[in-house]
């Protein structure tokens, strides 16, 4: 098992970590989810048939794990809402997290864009991360998301429009 894990780690760890980090924006959660991805991959490695590339397969699992995290987080928020003042404790995770050093060192525009990613839907965010941050092709993105290429293109376009609009709002001081 160590050999397989080592191979996966060496080839994909940085990309995998980064994909999940930009999705959840929380260091501890990212580490937990990356670990969860590896566990699922290793447990089903024998059944991997090579119909897709190893990378596509790994990222499809990462996507499932991340979506599942958001679902659970959504359920937790809902449960919490019954016992807590959400106005006081709102924005449970993402915006409350300190910006990582790498991003803090970047220009103001990048920092604003990093915040604006949260204004995108989960689908839009995934497409933007895979296409622009991870530099994957439309085909690779479509395979990972199990979508058609045209859906990737449309979602990508809509994500850019959302980011453009939200950048304008944030830079212009109109926060929602």
């Amino acid at each position, binding site marked *: 098992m160590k050999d397989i894990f080592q191979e996966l*780690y060496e080839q994909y760890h940085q990309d995998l970590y980064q994909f999940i980090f930009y999705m959840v924006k929380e260091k501890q959660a*990212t580490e937990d989810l*990356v670990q969860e991805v590896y*566990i699922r991959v290793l*447990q089903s490695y024998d059944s991997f048939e090579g119909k897709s590339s190893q990378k596509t397969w790994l990222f499809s699992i990462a996507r499932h794990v991340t979506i599942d995290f958001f679902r659970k987080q959504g359920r937790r928020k809902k449960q919490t809402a019954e016992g807590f003042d959400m106005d006081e404790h709102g924005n449970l995770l993402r915006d409350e997290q300190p910006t990582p050093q790498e*991003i803090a060192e970047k220009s103001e525009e990048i920092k604003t864009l990093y915040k604006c990613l949260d204004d995108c839907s989960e689908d839009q965010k995934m497409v933007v991360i895979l296409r622009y941050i991870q530099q994957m092709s439309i085909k690779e993105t479509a395979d990972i998301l199990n979508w*058609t290429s045209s859906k990737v293109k449309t979602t990508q376009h809509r994500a850019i429009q959302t980011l453009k609009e939200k*950048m304008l709002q944030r830079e212009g001081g109109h926060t929602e």
Partner: protein
Amino acid sequence: MKKHDDKSIEQLLSEMPNVHDDKSFDEYYKNISKQINNQPKAKQRGWILPALASAAALFLMVIVGMQLVNTNDTADQANSMETAELRKEFSPESEEGSAGIAMDENETSDEAKAGITSSEESGIVQLRDLSSMVLTQEETEGKELSTFIVPDQQAMYSVPITVNISNKDPYEVFNEYSSYIQSEQWGVSTAIFNKMKYIGMNKQEEPIVQISEDIQGSSMERAVIEGLRYFESLGHEKVQIQDSEGNAVELPHIGDLTYIEFNQSPKVYKLYEANENQKFWIEKKMNNQSIDEAIEELKVNEKDFNVTAPVPDYINLDLEEDTSTLVITMTKQQHDSSSEEMIFLIEGILLTAKSYGFEKVEFNNFGVSEIGKYDLTQPINVPVYINPK
């Protein structure tokens, strides 16, 4: 304050910094091995049963083969149970590139034999082509497809139909529906598309569709709303609608509307035989009903409306949800299902599961390891397209 355009946003995104993990390989490995070793072993897929089934199939093939050689009666023997059942469900002329021999109700036995022989020649591939009514991600490779949602001739059901649009602009294709939907032959009605016209995109990059003023009755209203879901398959969440003067559209029951938003309500999928030998999956909305209720609904025939349940009512299915995978275990099966019935059962469940947000379905204890294009030893991805033509 700088105004960004698409290019500058794309540029900024590509300049987003690499975020590095400071947890080491060894730390991960230690945690992962600990967790894997502490977990109960993943359920071992039964390789023995499939292996036995394969051996039994091989044995049968040898026996049948010997019989064929002995009797020198290839054409008659080719009328195997499977192909006979296959014909009962599906006449070959209904599919392009299949056996390709048109049969009417009074077909002669010679014609029948010819049809069956050709289907036997291509074996399981033939079966796959004849039975499957969905497309997986892999099957869409290199194809440009779009899905129209058209009503049946009685406007009872919504029939999604996927067509190959080659290199055409999918938005323009909406207006050219008549070149793609053979309404008479397929037993569907495209009249409603005469009342809708795609005229461009608004500033939010949402499609604008002009709707004729004479929408009357709830069936027509529903057909318009369903027809506009063409744009949903192109990735849009809503469509702007307007009348010929650019004003809100007055729909008979809903009232004045400027947008139609697509709410992804869960659905069940059943088999509808619109015209003879023209089978389609039709959609039926499930309002606030659970996936368990939906699977039960898949057992309900609506014979008066030519709608067949894809899941036989003698089958018992247990459901479990494992994140984005629906795990279905067959607990009771009194009769053997034919290959076609099995494929319809699987595809009906896959389509229904997809509408409930599942991405894969794991089929346990279905008695076969492989059927048509489906390998039941693995969780199966939900299909990407439905009713390809």
